[in-house]
């Protein structure tokens, strides 16, 4: 396999892990975050520092990056998860930017705005593939258990979730922390693949990209998130000449999807064998509906 193709696959894999985190938070708990790139940055820098300054093996650095993101999400969640919808969103936005600026200021530790160089390349295709498989399995198992059901209950109707005995604060925190761990994981893999990281890589653009990918893939669908990430990571590679207009394209895609197909590509559905089997029937039904309307 050529190095280029391998690089693209690794990038897709890393993005999938970060997007899955946002998918759990936004698609299944209805908590919108525009700060997950901040958790990616924390994972990236923490793991990079562990590898280079403390000579830790890659696995330990990886876990260290995830743990660091988890701890910060716990502290942040305590402060902000009591807020309702849009207010919470704004705090995540603030958090993401704060993290980026803080990393720039902590020059002696993080290398500041010039970036952090000299990270050994440890992320291989195999490690990424294993990570993606693990991330998908954990997310799927988590969501298909009482934990995931409780998250969905919060998404659907928070007051009713409370009324059936779900400690909504605790489960929102769970969702937020899992999402941060995934972001930290992706960040650590990212740092050890590109070997050089700067705070600007984890800016608001990156955060919005993650959330937009989840919305395009469809809220409440893991397979939707995976498909959307793959397509959206591949597109700028395939259409190199227009790659600079990526964010423009994202913006247009979101507007189109929210107006034409508000549930996204796969909203609230998972791609499975039975779904594919039923596809012809669904398509037929869709056309019949159209005709009736006409």
């Amino acid at each position, binding site marked *: 396999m050529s190095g280029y193709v391998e690089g693209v696959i690794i990038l897709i894999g890393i993005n999938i892990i970060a997007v899955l985190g946002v998918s759990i938070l936004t698609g299944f708990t209805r908590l919108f975050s525009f700060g997950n790139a901040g958790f990616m940055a924390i994972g990236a820098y923490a793991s990079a520092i562990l590898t280079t300054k403390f000579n830790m093996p890659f696995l330990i650095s990886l876990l260290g990056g995830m743990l660091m993101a988890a701890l910060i999400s716990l502290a942040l969640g305590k402060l902000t998860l009591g807020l309702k919808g849009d207010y919470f969103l704004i705090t995540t936005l603030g958090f993401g930017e704060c993290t980026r600026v803080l990393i720039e200021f902590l020059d002696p530790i993080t290398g500041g705005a010039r970036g952090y160089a000299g990270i050994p390349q440890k992320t291989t295709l195999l490690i990424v593939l294993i990570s993606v498989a693990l991330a998908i399995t*954990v997310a799927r*198992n*988590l969501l298909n*258990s*009482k*934990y995931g*059901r*409780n998250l*969905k*209950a919060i*998404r*659907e*109707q928070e*007051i*009713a*979730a*409370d*009324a*059936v*005995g*779900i*400690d*909504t604060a605790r489960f929102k925190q769970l969702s937020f922390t899992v999402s941060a761990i995934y972001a930290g994981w992706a960040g650590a893999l990212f740092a050890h693949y590109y070997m050089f990281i700067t705070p600007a890589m984890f800016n608001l653009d990156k955060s919005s990209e993650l959330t937009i990918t989840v919305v395009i893939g469809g809220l*409440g669908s893991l397979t939707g998130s995976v498909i959307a990430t793959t397509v959206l990571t591949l597109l700028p590679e395939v259409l190199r000449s227009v790659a600079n207009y990526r964010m423009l394209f994202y913006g247009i895609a979101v507007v189109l999807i929210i107006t034409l197909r508000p549930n996204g590509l796969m909203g*609230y559905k998972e791609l499975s064998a039975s779904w594919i089997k039923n596809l012809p029937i669904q398509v037929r039904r869709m056309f019949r509906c159209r005709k009736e309307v006409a």
Partner: protein
Amino acid sequence: MKEILKIANLTKKFGGVCAIDNFSVTLEEGTVHGLIGPNGAGKTTIFNTITGIYKPTGGTIEFMGKDITNKKPYQVAQQGIGRTFQNIRLFSQLSVLENVFIAGHMDADYDLFAAILRLNKFGKKEKYLRENCIELLKILGLSDKLNEKAGSLPYGHQRKLEIARALALRPKLLLLDEPAAGMNRDESKELVEFINELKEKFKLTILMVEHHMDVVMSICRRITVLNFGKTIAEGTAKEIQTNKLVREAYLGGEDAAC
């Protein structure tokens, strides 16, 4: 008879407005208690205060001998108080089965690792819970709609599903907020039988808010009448029907007529 719910001098103020003024009631196990009164009398506020959505300004709420006055909503529910809502609040994107499944979460006592690693224990508990939920939905007559989206059910079924969801908690006390809202005479008659049946089957005590007088009069052993947050009468259906204050509250008093 054992006392199951004891509310003493409950008061709730929103700024200068006294939504509940010194409300007291005692529910005996296995009875149905009605809460009636004109719109804005504070009936739903009482429900929301019992279930912890509102913090009371004063007074105490005791459930099965335990003080639950300042407990959070989920803690109250875990103690064994299930409720339905006046404006139906289902998990509407989810299936009928999932709605009940979610409410049974306390029976699924596995931890996060068992869920992620899919340990044996997880499978067993989930299977057991699923069977229980299907059984419950069978009793409520919703078993042929397991995989339908809750939000797309007809209104009557949505009401039933809300009750099913509350029952999945295995409550001792069930709070029904206008279960007969939007029902005609025949439907509400059916509802009365249905509630009586459930009460026997699940050994429930029920506190209900209702505007349909035929429902209230035929099912409630005792009734409390509220007006502007104040209790104006309490007694059996007969006593309430002949109470002068109650008539005035509903039909207007002599001086209020002009």
